[in-house]
């Protein structure tokens, strides 16, 4: 069955969600991935939205933002930001998805300032809830386009902490958890070794290791058990097509 790159990314992201988990799902790819996960291997997962919504079943109807009326109708809970994000800090949230303008070798993400905050070249929108999710979720899954200027050796500004300077630096900062996967349009990277450096873990069908390394801004190393990303199964694609009625991601 044919599938688009974005569909592969969605399915790969869905596989990061386990059954009965509490997940910060966000918008766009992650919310679709959450829908696929619920329809396949994670029927008891719960989705949280920082504006103040918890849902079991994903919304029916087009969402432009997480607070659009279809996401309120039939929600498990409509409440405030503190009640939802407090669960993160309380240690109840298993996984969170975020995007970003830049990610570095140690999984730190920048969505704030290109060029450092003192005299930035570009002012990006900022953290939103991303810093909180990156700090407090048990596992972080980042979703990015795989371009050399986005996957960089070191970000200018750590909006959302990954493994910081490697070694024990994340733990020393008072944090547990950390990035578990970076799902891109070419590959999946995962942390490895004492520094939790991002290694190439899985190559998407149709892509090569050389091409991926060429589009990565650091000397990308390979996981011992590196493999190819399994293409979406018939069941996964069927679930995705139920969620993505209009074929937006096709």
């Amino acid at each position, binding site marked *: 069955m044919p599938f688009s790159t974005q569909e592969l990314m969605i399915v790969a992201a869905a596989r990061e969600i386990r059954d009965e988990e509490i997940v910060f799902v966000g918008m766009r790819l992650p919310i679709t991935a959450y829908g696929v996960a619920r329809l396949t291997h994670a029927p008891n997962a719960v989705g949280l939205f920082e504006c103040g*919504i918890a849902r079991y079943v994903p919304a029916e109807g087009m969402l432009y933002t997480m607070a659009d009326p279809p996401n309120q109708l039939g929600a498990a809970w409509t409440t405030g930001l503190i009640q939802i*994000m407090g669960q993160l800090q309380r240690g109840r949230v298993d996984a969170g998805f975020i995007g970003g303008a830049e990610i570095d070798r140690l999984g730190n993400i920048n969505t*704030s300032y290109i060029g450092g905050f003192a005299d930035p070249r570009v002012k990006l929108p900022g953290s939103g809830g991303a810093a909180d999710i990156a700090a407090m979720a048990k596992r972080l899954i980042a979703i990015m386009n795989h371009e050399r200027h986005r996957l960089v050796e070191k970000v200018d*500004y750590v909006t959302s*902490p990954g493994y910081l300077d490697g070694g024990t630096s*994340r733990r020393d900062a008072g944090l547990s958890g950390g990035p578990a996967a970076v799902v891109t349009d070419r590959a999946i990277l995962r942390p490895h070794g004492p520094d939790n450096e991002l290694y190439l873990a899985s190559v998407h069908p149709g892509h090569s290791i050389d091409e991926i390394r060429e589009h990565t801004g650091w000397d990308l190393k390979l996981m011992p058990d590196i493999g190819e990303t399994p293409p979406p199964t018939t069941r996964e694609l069927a679930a995705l097509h139920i969620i993505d009625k209009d074929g937006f991601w096709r």
Partner: protein
Amino acid sequence: MKDRLIPLGEAIAEHVRHGDSLVMGASLEPDIPFAATHEIIRQAKRDLDIVAPISDASSDMMIGAGCVAQITGAWCGNVSGGLGHNYRRAFEHGMPRSIKVNDHSNFSLGMALMAGAHGMPYAAMRSILGSDILRSNPAFRITENPFSAEAEPIVLVPPLIPDVAILSVQRADRYGNSHHWGNCGLMQEAALAAQRVILLADEIVDAAVIASDPGRVLFPGYLVTAVCHVPAACHPSPMTGCWRRDNAFFHDYHRQSRGREDFLAWLDEWVLGVPDHAAYRAKLGQQLDDLRIMGDAPSVAANYAAE
């Protein structure tokens, strides 16, 4: 109960002052009081500090109109389009004036307003540990948790007490009592923290409607300074049960705010050249009517009978 119903123009004139810190909405993506944004721009309020977890096009418009000195928030842009062009122009090029950004995460801003709401000297948290937000915003303090046996860094967040919170709700009575439903972000914290509250109600109802369900009240009417009856005050943002999101309008704004000249033309067309929100609604015409939610998905009643 005191009658607090006044026109929006009067509420902004009397209760928003140059230099005020201002919460505009606070439920993140929905219920943004754009009608008040327009009025603030028309009345040329200056040097405002906009306090917001998510600062959508509402902030971008006020920045472009030169009303804003500071953004205290976690995210500022255009949810439909990504970057906020006026925000970037102001921050990167000082146009039409430079602005200062006080970086927060959503949760740290929530904790700051929560501390303000309940009179706490500060909020202690962990959520932005490891983030450079702690470097770029000197308001926070990092310290050790005195209750922890091992060394454990924590973050102290000072309280925020906004001068004004401007909040949109589905229905209110003329005395300031109101019902809000759908996600509420930091609306309750903002109302309880703020010195003054301006309430924009999509509908003004009899006091008995609100009193029929005191559990649907997000903040009490006695803390409300002024109530304004402004249908679709949230346009182009959505309001649960009332208005869908006008995504095309956000996109148009994003496109037309890309250049400074085009933005000023947009501002003339949609804000400065429009006397008030009734005229804005009339100008939208069918486009607005098409956004009105016509369906009916009522909540099952709660019984408050005492006997």
